């Protein structure tokens, strides 16, 4: 029996290439990989389970810690260390594969920046190997510190630009930008020749611009991808404790309060960031204080991320679970929580009835295997998930329980429990959380899940028309926006449904680490409001715009794409 055939080197790893295993055969069908290409693949390599999606390990290794400005040079240690600890929770598996941890270079992976004008994000290596003109660096850093949250859009734009203008003059910025672009393209050409194990020594930041108009997005935003790579000490790559600050590829703001630990970031981050975050938090608090929260305003504000402190309440409001009127909130919560437990009382015993035992059995089987995250594996949490999913399923017979829905409970539960714990969520022992608190979290998670699913139920009804339609829209959009990718997939007979089905079915839950999903859902909440008011018109475009980010990532997953670009 011949062994799996993927030639030497990164072979085994390639086969496990993430969920779009189509790429396996693309690879086989492809000419020998050049070094850069392999470098890109390795971006996704390293961890045990070859699912970068929720394998926090990969992401930690390959992207900068979330919630942290990409370019923060020093003082990251603590956060990174705690990121290391946090990783325990996000990663899907701690398994290591021999030979799968590789030095990574050439990780140009454009994240999305919805600003119309490019924003330069500079990553300063922890251990610069090439001296850089101090003046430029500081200037650039200054600029970066004012603009690294540029993914945030909305009403703050003007303020942002003003901040940037204050500390920089445009010429310097543009000069730096050009330099960066030049360096980047130069290095792109050099990379394939870099010897194995050599990590890009160029400390200059690579910027790779690629405008992706978001089509008919309601606000006409453009997505701009900014890719960055940077120097890393090889030790970083080898050391688990020091996740690589590598490249950011997804549409989360570099400073948006993504990570649960945004507090510690406040403590460590440059003053400008703290100021800005404090400002944002204050804005949220003002809005939430009432007496009637302007949901429209809240929605706008949430687009660019919700500060951790106010995320639970904001999600509850934007999902339509809580009323905008402050005085009515407490009562509503009580009533709904009671109502949920009445459901349990009424229905949960029926899980072993003939009519429902299949549903229950499926849920019961799926929860332990949906992730190895210690949180969910705690018996109490498993039970909570089972109850939430079972009650939802039997109360929605048109779809019932469909695999994938189980994934959608997690963000709610995690966000709501974070409100009541001091430690990091992966360390929490749920049995230490008071029973009453846990019950409320359960009820809140149920209702928010319910609200979320109300809007996308046709994803889960017979033949899953909602998903089919969204995948078609995605295809159409990619065809229009990135014809090369589209053609490439087409040539290789890769059907969108083959890779994008799960994106839609699990709302990207399996394509990225949970904390990214949480951040993404800050923006999804907006969609829910759309759903309640304008059911279909905006939904697809908005969602697809998010998915486009993934599509871009996919292009890199089909690792030959960068070469196609160069040609």
């Amino acid at each position, binding site marked *: *029996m011949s062994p799996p055939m993927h030639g030497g080197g990164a072979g085994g790893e390639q*086969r496990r290439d993430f969920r779009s295993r189509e790429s396996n055969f693309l690879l086989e069908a492809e*000419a020998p990989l050049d070094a850069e290409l392999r470098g890109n693949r390795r971006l996704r390599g390293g961890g045990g389970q070859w699912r970068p999606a929720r394998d926090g390990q990969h992401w930690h290794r390959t992207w900068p810690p979330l919630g942290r400005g990409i370019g923060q040079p020093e003082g990251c240690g603590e956060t990174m260390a705690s990121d290391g600890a946090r990783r325990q929770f996000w990663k899907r598996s701690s398994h290591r594969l021999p030979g799968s941890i590789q030095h990574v270079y050439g990780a140009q992976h454009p994240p999305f920046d919805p600003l119309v004008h490019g924003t330069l994000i500079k990553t300063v290596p922890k251990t610069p190997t090439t001296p850089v003109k101090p003046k430029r660096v500081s200037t650039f850093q200054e600029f970066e510190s004012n603009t690294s949250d540029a993914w945030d859009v909305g009403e703050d734009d003007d303020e942002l630009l003003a901040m940037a203008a204050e500390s920089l003059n445009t010429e310097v910025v543009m000069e730096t930008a050009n330099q960066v672009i030049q360096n980047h393209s130069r290095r792109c050409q050099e990379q394939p020749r870099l010897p194995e194990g050599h990590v890009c020594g160029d400390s200059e930041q690579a910027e790779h611009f690629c405008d992706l108009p978001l089509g008919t997005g309601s606000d006409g935003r453009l997505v701009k991808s900014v890719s960055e790579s940077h120097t890393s000490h090889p030790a970083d790559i080898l050391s688990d404790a020091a996740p690589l600050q590598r490249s950011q590829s997804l549409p989360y703001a570099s400073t948006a309060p993504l990570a649960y630990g945004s507090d510690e970031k406040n403590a460590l981050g440059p003053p400008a960031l703290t100021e800005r975050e404090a400002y944002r938090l204050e804005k949220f608090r003002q809005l939430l204080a009432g007496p009637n929260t302007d949901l429209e305003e809240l929605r706008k504000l949430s687009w660019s991320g919700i500060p951790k402190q106010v995320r639970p309440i904001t999600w509850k409001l934007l999902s339509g679970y809580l009323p905008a009127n402050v005085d009515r909130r407490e009562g509503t919560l009580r009533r709904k929580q009671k109502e949920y437990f009445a459901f349990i009382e009424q229905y949960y015993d029926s899980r072993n009835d003939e009519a429902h035992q299949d549903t229950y059995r499926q849920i019961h089987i799926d929860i332990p295997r949906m992730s190895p995250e210690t949180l969910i594996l705690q018996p109490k949490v498993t039970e909570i998930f089972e109850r939430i999913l079972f009650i939802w399923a039997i109360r929605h017979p048109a779809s019932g329980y469909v*695999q994938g829905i189980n994934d959608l409970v997690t963000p709610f539960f995690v966000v709501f429990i974070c409100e009541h714990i001091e430690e990091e969520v992966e360390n929490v022992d749920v049995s230490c959380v008071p029973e009453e608190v846990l019950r409320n979290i359960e009820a809140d998670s149920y209702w928010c899940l319910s609200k979320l699913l109300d809007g996308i139920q046709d994803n889960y009804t*017979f033949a899953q028309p909602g998903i089919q339609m969204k995948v078609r829209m995605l295809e159409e959009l990619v065809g229009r926006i990135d014809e090369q990718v589209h053609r490439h997939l087409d040539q290789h007979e890769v059907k969108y449904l*083959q890779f994008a089905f*799960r994106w839609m079915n699990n709302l990207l839950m399996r394509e990225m680490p949970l904390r990214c999903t949480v951040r993404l859902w800050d923006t999804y909440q907006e969609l829910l409001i759309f759903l309640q008011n304008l059911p279909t018109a905006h939904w697809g475009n908005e969602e697809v715009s998010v998915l486009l980010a993934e599509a871009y990532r996919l292009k890199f997953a089909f690792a030959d794409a960068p070469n196609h670009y160069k040609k």
Partner: protein
Amino acid sequence: MEAIWLYQFRLIVIGDSTVGKSCLIRRFTEGRFPQVSDPTVGVDFFSRLVEIEPGKRIKLQIWDTAGQERFRSITRAYYRNSVGGLLLFDITNRRSFQNVHEWLEETKVHVQPYQIVFVLVGHKCDLDTQRQVTRHEAEKVAAGYGMKYIETSARDAINVEKAFTDLTREIYELVKRGEITIQEGWEGVKSGFVPNVVHSSEEVVKSDRRCLC
């Protein structure tokens, strides 16, 4: 020598939810048993080469399908373009065995006008103490449908290679005898990348295949 394949076979793996389809495939393609396996939604794709005779390689494209009923409308689209299939049941779950018939019916409807060569796989044979389906009755059912029967364990790597290669050989023989032919518009069987060269020399260098993109 860079590998090239004589033929590419597309296989589909079906069976009830949680009988172990994905784990079996991953054992075969990745050589390991995943401790945790997310429920498959829609379909997943894997591939591997097998050498059925010295120098004769077949590339297997393996479609992993979701077992849950709701995904049937997605997964059934893959029957038509498959030449072979592994129909799995879990030997510790009698119900999954009873559903074998339904699965065959389901495929029959959707595969036409083509045919799928199936092998019946009794999975999780390492859990012999919890067995609910005897080997004998499974063999009988398989014979009734003209299928081979094999018992496998992804966890203990029992018969995993054999299940796939036996099926591959069976299909290969049918192809050689002309009972299965390559057809335009059908993905079940494809010939190697450089058909003219394949039979005379399998030493085709990989870079020759650059033309694919």
